[in-house]
């Protein structure tokens, strides 16, 4: 099972590396959006930049989840290769798990890029590492939402509108939770976020087993 996950993931990483306009576009979005955030943090008279930086980064994370969603399950449908996997003995859960890990890797790389740009441009450092731990942990949940929405959107016609909407609605609980932890400074919240993200990933994989079996 792990070997099959590895095979699918390795193939996807190769495809991403060869599809630079898409990955590059997502990276440019990351940098551009966080530049705006960094600029605001350095110019606006805010006493504690943490809430503003956190809210801004979570909004960027939401957009990035939409990008990673397009790069995962639904990509196979668009390429006409989804049937290639579905006609093989690889179960839909294994396939989905590989896509979820791909979404997680891409999301974490892009989020890190955003974080570094924001901190680099604003010069703000106090509480920055704590914020990064929260944003990075929420990436576990967001990548599950991203991959799950991608799997559902295989069957949607108006996916251009419905996919981002679905991600926004499903992400609301974790975004609100993350924002409410922003000022606490307690690293155990980051651990809780990561654990709840892993648990949700398991539920999403189970659900995807049924969704992709249709």
């Amino acid at each position: 099972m792990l070997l099959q996950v590895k095979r699918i993931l390795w193939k996807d990483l190769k495809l991403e590396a060869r599809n630079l306009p898409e990955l590059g576009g997502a990276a440019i979005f990351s940098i551009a959006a966080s530049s705006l955030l960094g600029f605001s943090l350095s110019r606006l008279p805010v006493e504690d930049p943490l809430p503003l930086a956190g809210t801004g980064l979570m909004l960027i994370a939401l957009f990035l989840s939409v990008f990673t969603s397009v790069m995962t399950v639904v990509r196979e449908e668009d390429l006409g290769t989804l049937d290639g996997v579905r006609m093989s003995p690889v179960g839909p859960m294994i396939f989905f798990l590989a896509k979820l890990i791909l979404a997680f890797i891409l999301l974490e790389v892009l989020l890190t890029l955003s974080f570094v740009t924001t901190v680099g441009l604003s010069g703000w450092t106090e509480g920055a590492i704590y914020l990064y731990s929260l944003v990075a942990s929420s990436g576990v949940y967001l990548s599950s939402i991203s991959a799950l929405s991608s799997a559902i959107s295989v069957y949607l016609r108006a996916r251009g509108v419905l996919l981002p909407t679905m991600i926004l609605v499903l992400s609301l609980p974790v975004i609100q939770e993350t924002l409410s932890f922003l000022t606490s400074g307690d690293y155990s919240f980051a651990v809780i976020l990561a654990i709840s993200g892993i648990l949700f990933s398991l539920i999403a994989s189970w659900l995807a087993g049924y969704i992709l079996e249709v």
Partner: protein
Amino acid sequence: MLEFRDVWKGFGNGYVVRGISFSLGRGEMVAIVGPNGSGKTTVLRLASGLIAPSKGRVLVEGRDARTPEAKALLGYVPHYPPLYGDLTVRENLLYYAGLYGYTDLSNVDPVVKELGLSAFMDRRVAELSYGWRKRVDMVRALLHDPPLLLLDEPLSGLDDRGREWLIGFLDRAVSEGKTVVVTSPRADVELEAKVYQIKEGKLSALTG
């Protein structure tokens, strides 16, 4: 090897496949002929486990066609090859081989040579014509040496050499005990096969 038991399949309004029943043993070849939209591809997609019947059962070696065990026994060549344009032919084949638990292409080395694909192994699939992609897809379907082959209009898009090879290959496969189902839009199939006609979702024997 393959059995359809009163299979019906509907999409939205009405049924595309209406109460089809047949069974094929090892070493049999069947051609399903019919015009575009008659339900040929749907029959193959049902047989490959890609879609579930609305009513009835599709069995491969007695197992539901949707199970991983049944899927491991079949090789399906759809009309549009499910290949990754940005990967090379070798990378595509190694990827699919991996899904069946194989780590190399030794199983299909002879087929790759016979089809003249050796020179294309390190070319990206996006650079190949439809006919060559179809050959690559044929190799993909044979990676795990399946006893049941399902081929959707396999002769379309192939040049004379490709057609000649495929006809010879399928005859050999049948003589080795493999079961083969092909579809064709033309009634004059160039294969030594039992011919069924599909019309308005119903199947009837034409020859054999």
